[in-house]
């Protein structure tokens, strides 16, 4: 897949749309990373200027222009190289992530549950990250935050950062489906077992790089099954990343022909083809499985 497929989608303001229309943070971050990996520095710089201009006063990022709340996409921005984003902005993004948790981990919520006589379920022991502050933590945003904070830890670890990373991994392991893999994060709603999704299984496995456990092995088995059956570009991208993070993507793997419809799909498709892609780049080879 040529990088031109991505570059031709770039908006005049420097950002990227999901497929067409205005610029959004998520596609812009992935497109910048893919542009940098392909040596397209001009496109990446223009994208980075859009990202910087979209920064919010609280140090986070909104999903798109006109939205007045910082959300999970701040974790995506923290995947960008700090020297290009600007170190102060990068550090603020990391701080935003460190102070953000799912609402079920907030003191006020836990107090209310205690007063109502409710014991927290085991999976609520570990704080993860929400899509939007004020709601519960989920697998997708938690995986992205872990990928970002792991890179931040390589640049300079701190006890709070390590603590959130460990808790985030605990969150993912506690939210795994019974037979392995992850859906968006509902393990047993109303007592019914949930089924895993390929894309979230790949995301969580990428976030759990370096974690070795029977649960991860079970998830890897599920991911390999999904990889053989799945025909969604988004899902295949994340499954490949997840398996690569554990050294489990077969060396002779040949991706099936799928339609890359959106900017994130196209950009991630380019990134997973990289030998050392920036999403997993900070993981030493020895930790990958």
């Amino acid at each position, binding site marked *: 897949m040529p990088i031109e497929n991505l570059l031709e989608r770039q908006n005049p303001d420097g950002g990227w749309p999901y497929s067409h229309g205005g610029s*959004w943070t998520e596609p812009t971050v992935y497109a910048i990373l893919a542009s940098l990996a392909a040596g397209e520095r001009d496109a990446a710089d223009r994208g980075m200027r859009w990202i910087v201009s979209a920064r919010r006063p609280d140090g986070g990022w909104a999903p798109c222009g006109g939205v007045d709340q910082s959300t999970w996409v701040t974790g995506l921005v923290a995947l960008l190289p700090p020297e290009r984003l600007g170190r102060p902005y990068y550090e603020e993004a990391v701080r935003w992530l460190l102070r953000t948790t799912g609402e079920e981990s907030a003191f006020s919520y836990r107090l209310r549950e205690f007063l109502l006589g409710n014991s927290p379920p085991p999976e609520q022991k570990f704080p993860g990250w929400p899509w*939007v502050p004020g*709601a519960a933590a989920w697998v997708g945003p938690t995986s992205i935050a872990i990928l970002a904070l792991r890179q931040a830890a390589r640049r300079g670890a701190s006890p709070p950062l390590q603590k959130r990373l460990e808790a985030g991994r605990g969150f993912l392991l506690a939210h795994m489906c019974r037979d392995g893999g992850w859906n968006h994060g509902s393990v047993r709603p109303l007592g*019914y077992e949930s089924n895993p999704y390929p*894309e979230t299984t790949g995301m969580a496995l990428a976030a759990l790089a370096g974690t070795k456990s029977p649960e991860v092995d079970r998830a890897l088995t599920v991911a390999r099954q999904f990889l053989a059956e799945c025909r969604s570009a988004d899902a295949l991208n994340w499954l490949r990343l997840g398996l690569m993070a554990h050294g489990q993507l077969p060396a002779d793997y040949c991706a099936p022909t799928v339609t890359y419809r*959106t900017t994130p799909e196209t950009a991630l498709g380019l990134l997973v083809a990289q030998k050392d892609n920036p999403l997993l780049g900070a993981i030493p080879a020895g930790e990958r499985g």
Partner: protein
Amino acid sequence: MSTPHPITRREWLTAPAAAGAALLAGCNHAVAIRPASVSITRAAAYGQGLYDTVRHILEQHRLDVRGRRVLLKPNLVEFEPGSSINTHPLLVHAAMEAFRALGAAEVRIAEGPGHRRNTLDLAEAAGYFQTVPRFEDSFVDLNVDEVSLVRPERTFSRLEKLYLPNSALGADLLVSMPKMKTHHWVGATLSMKNLFGLVPSGIYGWPKNVLHWAGISECIADLHAAFPRQFALVDGIVGMEGNGPIQGTPKPAGVLVAGRDRVAVDATCCRIMRIDPYRIRYLQLATRDSQESILEGNIRQVGERIADVATRFQLPPDFQDL
């Protein structure tokens, strides 16, 4: 003989709220209103006959869409071809053709799935690409559509504002096309609950958990109030019973239920499913002042009679008393 149990913290905290709700319930009063027209049409299967059937339904309701922008909102949830989770694409295409035949300037299909991020892949798996010619040209992924900030005039939930997709806000007629299903959180998911798909996951995430924290039934009522220009066409040809809206089992009901008054349509669907509509909280909220459109006597039934098509839907365990 049962023994008295000690009062828990929960009971201490919830008792005043329960007493207040009981007092409010006693304040309901009848209001004279114009009956809402709801049609029930038999449709045994998803076949070519649907094109004529849907055209006939729209003619019954005398919808004037000449020169108007119509947005069809099916229910697309999961990748499971052959299941009864998603609104059948043939019904959606039949509606598209029927609205075009009535002179609509534009008919588009739009959805913002709340579980899966890859909307077009989901539509492809559900058969939309095969059934609707040039599907991508007429489809809007509401999860990543341009948005506007909306502050509903009447709010039932804790949400004071909501970003909503411009394609839905700008439509002259929003056509809610849900699947007739039971739902493990709210009892039944019909034309009003289907509006959750208007809330953009690109802003709120997958799932749209903000709506859960603000109260699911309350948010349904908020969305109902935020989109007044609607028509409902419910796919009850094969619905879902049991642990809906995803893990239930197919339930053939063989009907299409339609009307402009979504509360009346959903109340009628409930009666077809043998569910008491007064027990569905979002229906109560949406008609808080009068409950006019829930009352069977206030609904002018067109076509089949409820008694002739009603079929009991197995309910999720928490809703056995509905």
